[in-house]
């Protein structure tokens, strides 16, 4: 049952050192505010799962929170590399991290399987790719009906998933709208979940834009809800604010340099209280 907590308390209670954490949001609704709180609380040895690690994981990796990253596309979309991810992988700064990489199709299916309570996802995937050579979590099974060889990957089952959404109501029901990504799957697949939202409304079903098939996650399937206004910036929230594309471009220069990065984190995360 969703409990309304401050972002500080939600992260303090549910994100433990060494935990497997999925922060999702496919380009849209990326939980930056929550990620910054994880950095401020100096969480360590996290296994970070995310289809598209972008700036938020670059920041967590550069800040030394991660020991392992499971992903399928790690870049600054439309801009270039994640320099902190590369520095960690290529040079081991601030620590060496392990990576386990998939394709998007496999990750998406693995989240789906996690939500569906299955141990594995089966897909027609990885044909001819060399990813199975470097990821021992990719296996192949034979269809008992057709004999076709299909790929299998383990379901994603994080200790805690963190997502950002447009709004929650007083009962803790959460609306995700627009590009919904794998957020619902991430929440349902996880043992615990934190959802940050732009605002709290009285009753979701009484909202003027209520729709009978809207993507609503019921409050009883969520552990903690925290209000984090503009909590997805520099990513965006459909219906609330646009993506700060300029910051995404600026990040390239900040992240290229260890000192510039460290200064940025100090100023904009560590010393920003709960406001970053």
């Amino acid at each position, binding site marked *: 049952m969703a409990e309304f907590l401050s972002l500080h308390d939600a992260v303090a209670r549910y994100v433990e050192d060494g935990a497997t954490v999925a922060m999702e949001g496919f380009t849209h609704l990326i939980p930056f505010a929550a990620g910054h709180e994880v950095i401020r609380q100096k969480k360590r040895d996290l296994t970070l799962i995310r289809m598209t690690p972008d700036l938020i994981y670059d920041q967590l990796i550069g800040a030394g929170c991660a020991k392992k990253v499971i992903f399928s596309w790690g870049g600054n979309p439309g801009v270039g590399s994640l320099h902190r991810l590369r520095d960690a992988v290529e040079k081991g700064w601030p620590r060496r991290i392990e990576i386990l*990489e998939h394709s998007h199709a496999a990750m998406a299916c693995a989240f789906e399987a996690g939500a569906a309570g299955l141990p594995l996802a089966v897909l027609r995937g990885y044909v001819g*790719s060399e990813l199975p050579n470097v990821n021992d979590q990719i296996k192949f099974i034979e269809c008992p009906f057709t004999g076709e060889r299909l790929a299998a990957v383990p379901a994603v089952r994080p200790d805690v998933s963190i997502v950002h959404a447009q709004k929650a109501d007083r009962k803790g029901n959460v609306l995700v709208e627009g590009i919904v990504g794998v957020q619902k799957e991430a929440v349902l697949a996880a043992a615990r979940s934190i959802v940050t939202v732009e605002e709290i409304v009285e009753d979701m079903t009484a909202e003027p834009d209520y729709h009978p098939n809207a993507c609503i996650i019921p409050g009883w399937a969520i552990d903690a809800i925290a209000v984090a206004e503009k909590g997805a910036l520099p990513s965006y929230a459909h219906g609330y604010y646009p993506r700060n594309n300029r910051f995404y471009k600026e990040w390239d220069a900040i992240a290229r340099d260890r000192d510039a990065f460290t200064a940025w984190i100090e100023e904009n995360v560590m010393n920003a209280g709960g406001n970053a």
Partner: protein
Amino acid sequence: MSIEYTSSEMMTVTAARALENGMTCFVGIGLPSEAANLARLTHAPDVVLIYESGTLQTKPDVLPLSIGDGELAESALTTVAVPEMFRYWLQGGKISVGFLGTAQIDRYANLNTTLIGDYHDPKVRLPGGGGAPEIATNAGEVFITLKHSKRAFVKDVDFVTTLGFGRDGKGRDGVPNIGKGPTRVITDLCVMKPDPETKELTVVSLHPGVSREDVIEATGWEIRFAGELESTPEPSAKELDILRELKARTERQHAGE
């Protein structure tokens, strides 16, 4: 011809022309997205553009910076969850063409977006596979577009992230339920197609003003040329106008917060 255009524009226009009205195209970010939207704004108004963020049949007014820009959802027919996108729409066989870019490509059109060097001690770590590995096998066919250079066009990719025709050209032989794979590669110098037999990429058309030597010099293997080598038609004034307007609109929008 009196129309002036850059080699990048030539590439984009040529890539756009590869798309036909009524195709359903799974669009990669960057050059493919530029070409696909140009096609939609010119000769193929009913080309269906699909982005892996879940946006079905989207008609962005400006080019997205990321694969999941708000513009894509706002102009889509509908937006589905990412697992549904990969399961129902891509793997379900609803995509006629996947349009991809890449960092490295080899003579059998295998794509590498994973890393340069050795996997466990990379010289350069690239973003990774993303949607490409399954787009390349589950879409009906694949178009690839990227700038021509020796660094990009290598004899053998350092890592096969995404299957073209395998390291021996036979990677799709006998595989059930697999698409045709790369049917053309469009660069700023030429158009290549796989040889019908060997699957080795072969230049079938040179862009205006480009020589065989230019291509040879920019390719990391002994590139072959088709017996009947065509000359790629030039961009029209209308195509160039629309492309330039699209890029200008995009730049204005992305410059703002």
